[in-house]
């Protein structure tokens, strides 16, 4: 499992370098948008349904959560990278996430997740 994930991050790095060239030309790239919404709805639905109190969720609900999740990841990362920058590092690490968790009330629900 670890081996596979190492490869993934390497692939991502490769994507990054080629993305540098492509993205400067395609600012409003549709590819960008399509890539972003690749959160699998079925997986999101599974997670929602793992709550025994949840009976049914409309397609709209799943899609709304999918988009909200994207926003959440984006915001979480953006906050965490502040900490990365302050430490003069280039790599966003787990401790950066730990650091920012008490900076917003809305992150309180995550207390205990990171232990």
């Amino acid at each position, binding site marked *: 499992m670890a081996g596979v994930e190492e490869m993934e991050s390497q692939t991502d790095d490769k994507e990054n370098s080629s993305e540098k060239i492509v993205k400067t030309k395609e600012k409003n790239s549709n590819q960008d*948008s399509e890539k972003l919404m690749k959160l699998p709805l079925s997986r999101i639905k599974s*997670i929602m349904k793992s709550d025994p109190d949840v009976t049914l969720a409309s397609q709209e609900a799943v899609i709304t959560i999918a988009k909200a999740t994207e926003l959440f990841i984006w915001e979480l990362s953006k906050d965490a990278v502040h900490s990365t920058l302050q430490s003069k590092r280039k790599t966003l690490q787990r401790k950066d996430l730990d650091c920012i968790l008490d900076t917003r009330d809305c992150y309180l629900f995550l207390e205990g997740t990171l232990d």
Partner: protein
Amino acid sequence: GQYVMEGGGDGEELGATENDDDNRGDNEPLREQDRFLPIANVARIMKKSIPKTGKIAKDAKETVQECVSEFISFITSEASERCHQEKRKTINGEDILFAMSTLGFDSYVEPLKQYLQKYRESSKGDKGGSGGADGTLEDLAEESFTQSLSTGLLTSEQANSQNVIYAPYSGAIAQNISFG
């Protein structure tokens, strides 16, 4: 003496197939890999928020994966409660929006509303289809909605910013940020 086990399962094991999300029994816990969103997808989104020269440690990606699942459960649970209170069985988009607002994710509501509206409009044309949630809808919603979100976030951050300017994440971020 001998034990005779009377057909161990309740039929759940027999009936549930791995790909069959809808028939997944309530007591069946998700497999480890199904509890989280795929790490590659998560990482891809994370990358949009950090400078291009930045990297993300693997444990950071994993941590965000976990946080995300918590987030989904957290919002869903709240939305579900509201649903029950109103004696409805199906959680809809409005319930999600309400939950977000209640739980401190108020800044997401406007962009999500716009997104949802476009989704509804685009699915009106599709008879019986699930609507254009991917592809073209993204093009419509993406720009306006990231701008309104990032505007909101920028305002609250300016107090302690260090000359860091975050543009809407269509790719223009990196140029304004220096690490040194």
